[in-house]
């Protein structure tokens, strides 16, 4: 036990001495959360559009003012004719064009029917869809206003309620994802690189010929990162709860317990990588390519898993982050207890055990 503490002391010294890395280790999650929390949103507002007003009469002006007043849109320019639309799109800043035909006013007044054309930049199909919907609803609202409060017969009124996240904030999706990402990065990459560095510089051999159990050596390398990661979890939660107003509907204790499990999973992954590689560069690359990318892709927080082709969905099942993401969301946002997440917990534990066994089997007492 005393030997273990000695090792721990040395490892902590290593880690704490590297101030630049420490800064990033602690700063990164905070910055990420703040970005995700405040800057990234799927909400549509202030979208720049261009209006082609070929009518230039009172009716068109009225509708145009209404569009201008809406928080969804910001009119960049009002063009005299439709020729310039494509150029406006090409210049890159506008996402939509609304075209009023020249007889808009007269048509509305006499025929009671007028047409407006909505042209959306469908480079981003979802945005185009959403924008088209919003524009239609603005126009429909204007239409209703024109018609006064007259009774519409046989009216069906849908009442929409948003569950869990009434303001459609991205936080609820992102924060659990950021947690998974940061923990993954720190635990896997740092542990792997730290162990491999000793191999590279030759100090590993010294440790291996010593009477200390090699397993002890590895574990002692992982422990500082365990502590650091727990601190990170606390930081992330504090920032999310108090600065981003993210509610934690479930048990904090359960959340910590599950986080610890996930951290151990990642650390084991790191150890596994270190057992298999001999150079820092390779360890880093594998961590990034083999860990980061799949985590970002398959955890489900950036890309919806259900949209992926089946093959990829299957692959996503072996990415630990996917299960952790579900667990965190269930606890934080849905407020579920252990009964709701025992399945995922079991899977995570299973992955950890598997990695541990494989690492132990592959661990060479004698370096090649």
């Amino acid at each position: 036990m005393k030997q273990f503490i000695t090792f721990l002391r040395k490892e902590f010294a290593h880690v704490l001495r590297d101030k630049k890395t420490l800064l990033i280790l602690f700063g990164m999650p905070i910055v990420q959360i703040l970005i995700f929390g405040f800057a990234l949103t799927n909400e549509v507002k202030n979208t720049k559009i261009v209006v082609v007003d070929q009518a230039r009469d009172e009716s068109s002006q009225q509708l145009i003012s209404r569009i201008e007043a809406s928080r969804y849109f910001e009119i960049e320019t009002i063009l005299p004719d439709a020729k310039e639309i494509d150029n406006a799109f090409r210049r890159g800043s506008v996402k939509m064009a609304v075209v009023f035909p020249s007889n808009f006013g007269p048509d509305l007044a006499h025929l009671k029917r007028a047409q407006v054309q909505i042209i959306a930049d469908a480079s981003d199909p979802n945005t185009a869809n959403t924008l088209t919907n919003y524009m239609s609803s603005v126009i429909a609202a204007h239409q209703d206003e024109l018609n006064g409060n007259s009774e519409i017969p046989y009216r069906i009124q849908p009442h929409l309620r948003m569950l869990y996240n009434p303001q459609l904030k991205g936080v609820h999706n992102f924060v659990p994802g950021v947690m998974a990402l940061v923990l993954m990065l720190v635990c896997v990459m740092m542990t792997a690189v730290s162990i491999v560095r000793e191999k590279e510089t030759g100090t590993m051999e010294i440790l291996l010929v010593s009477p200390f159990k090699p397993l002890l050596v590895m574990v002692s390398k992982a422990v500082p990162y365990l502590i650091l990661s727990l601190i990170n979890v606390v930081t992330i939660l504090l920032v999310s709860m108090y600065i981003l107003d993210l509610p934690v509907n479930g048990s904090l204790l359960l959340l910590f317990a599950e986080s610890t499990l996930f951290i151990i999973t990642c650390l084991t992954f790191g150890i596994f990588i270190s057992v298999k590689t001999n150079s820092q560069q390779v360890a880093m690359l594998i961590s990034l390519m083999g860990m980061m990318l799949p985590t970002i892709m398959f955890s489900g927080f950036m890309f919806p898993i259900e949209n992926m082709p089946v093959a990829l969905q299957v692959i996503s099942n072996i990415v630990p982050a996917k299960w952790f993401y579900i667990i965190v969301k269930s606890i934080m946002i849905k407020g579920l207890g252990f009964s709701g997440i025992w399945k995922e917990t079991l899977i995570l534990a299973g992955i950890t055990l598997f990695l541990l066994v494989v690492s132990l089997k592959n661990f060479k007492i004698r370096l090649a």
Partner: protein
Amino acid sequence: MRTIRFLLQKEFRQIFRNKIILAMILVMPAVQLIILPLAADYEVKNINISVVDHDHSPYSRKLISTITASGYFVLTGYQSSYKEAFRLIEQDKADLILEIPASFEKNVIKENSGHLFIAVNAINGVKANLGGAYLTSIINTYNHDIRLDMAPSPRFNDQSRIATTSTNRFNALMNYRVFMVPGILAILVTMIGGFLSALNIVKEKEVGTIEQINVTPIRKHHFIIGKLVPFWVLGNVVFTIGLLISRLIYGIVPAGDLLVLYCFVAVFLLSVLGLGLLISTFCDTQQQAMFIMFFFMMIFILLGGLFTSTDSMPPWARVVSQLNPVSYLISVMRMVMLKGSGLKDVAGHLAIVGVFAVVLNTWAVLNYKKTS
């Protein structure tokens, strides 16, 4: 000038002997461009809807079949109560609940007003937005059909109607891949350029060969140029490979001028390489450099408009976005590849990225000290 020739010879020799870098250059584009677009499909489909029908009338049944016929929704089943349906939402088996109250049909016909209650799992904002929008739209059309059915009353004719027609430009098939691929290409170029250059000088520091360089009369800016050029070339190679893959696998061909794209990528690479070199001069170990580069890269990519629009960002984030070279790259990639924008349109972006390149590289040269 001769010095640069020798530097380039050395760098290229080292690069080609480094199997890891070579693997990265060839494998990364392939992996990113093939797997990411498959994974990054934001198109909203298969929204699971659970129906709680207390009415069981012809109207309610017709509504439900209209909804399922639309193709957007998948009916997970009929639940007998809202509570039961909510359980499905908790288990992620349903995304939406539609509750049709008892006497729905009667209320619509007799009282001219029937109500429907929709609950949407809004954890995923995009899905919630679109799901809600689609459903509301279907209900409105259904409503309109009922009115027509019941024969138009004179009052109805007095209503003004503004009809809208909508067209989609540039991506008529609404294919999400077409949108994602240019963005992913941008990320690819950024990552390769950034990481390779960041690690390079630091490796020489770690190994010790930089001392031998520092003791020669080599000029600082020659040294930096000698580091820039090889990775600049590599960046362009990776970009080309990426374009080829996009063409071969997705059939995406730039709508605009290829030359404009290359021109922009060339200048952009200089700026991201400059950043990598700058970071290199501040770090002592490869691990540090990698970490710091990763940190910047992440911020740049997230705030660059790849996944979410820069329009909806708060003012401070928009300012940061303007200081972010990657946002310009992503914009230009999309503009030129999807919309056919020309040199005139991207000239502004080009100038800004050019300024970044100059500032970052100059700073790197100034910060690199041969005498410590």
